[in-house]
């Protein structure tokens, strides 16, 4: 998706890993990614980008050069959770859903909470505060390759609307 969005009108910011600075108030600050974009051959074909050098002889992913790279940090406007669905679209998460998502096992927010050394009530307060610092949505899209474009166009439209 990142490669396909980068092919259209969006600057490549990161893939897989997003570095967040949560130290200030207001929206967390996102730092442009340090990892090179890598795709399987079928992913590159689907995104319509040229597959470059192989990552390793025993690992068939290919490096892909994004058309343009972001260089400056940007405030996080929205966090969207990707979910497989029959139709592409976005829904806004409620406060309870936002807190639950931030508290989920796979979220690296646990590292942040551990560093804050808070008890259970403190954790709840931190998550409640963090959940208010940016919008959160669920992004639904079909995972079928022949409907890939549907998800991309929905995401692109949503990003542009969110950016105002």
């Amino acid at each position: 998706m990142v490669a396909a969005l980068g092919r259209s009108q969006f600057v490549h910011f990161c893939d897989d890993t997003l570095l967040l600075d949560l130290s200030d108030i207001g929206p967390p600050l996102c730092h442009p990614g340090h990892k090179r974009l890598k795709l399987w051959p079928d992913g590159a074909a689907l995104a319509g980008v040229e597959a470059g050098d192989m990552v390793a002889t025993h690992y068939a992913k290919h490096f892909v050069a994004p058309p343009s790279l972001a260089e400056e940090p940007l405030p996080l406007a929205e966090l969207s959770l990707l979910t497989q669905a029959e139709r592409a679209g976005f829904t806004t998460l409620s406060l309870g859903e936002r807190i639950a998502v931030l508290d989920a096992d796979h979220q690296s927010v646990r590292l942040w909470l551990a560093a804050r050394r808070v008890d259970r009530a403190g954790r709840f307060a931190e998550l409640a505060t963090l959940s208010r610092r940016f919008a959160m949505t669920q992004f639904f899209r079909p995972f079928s390759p022949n409907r890939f474009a549907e998800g991309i166009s929905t995401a692109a439209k949503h990003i542009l609307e969110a950016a105002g």
Partner: protein
Amino acid sequence: MTALSKDPARFAETAIDGEVVVMPLDTGDFFSLTATAAAIWRLIDGTRDRAQLLGALAAEYGAEPSAIAAEVDAFLAQLRSAGLVRESA
């Protein structure tokens, strides 16, 4: 009068846009309260007994107290069971 009150030492809460999220401190589980559940939670402030709470909620939603009593009682039972609400004279 047996007033319904919360035990603030047993939970943490936060609210936005009419939604209240409550976390009992002993379990760490979250409860999301919206609409009438959030209204009931807000009306439990230590000054109302069950009948007064029913009356206030019925007035707020334009309903007869008898029509909403069963659902309110069920929700109050859940809150008591979770240790979030108690009755005091």
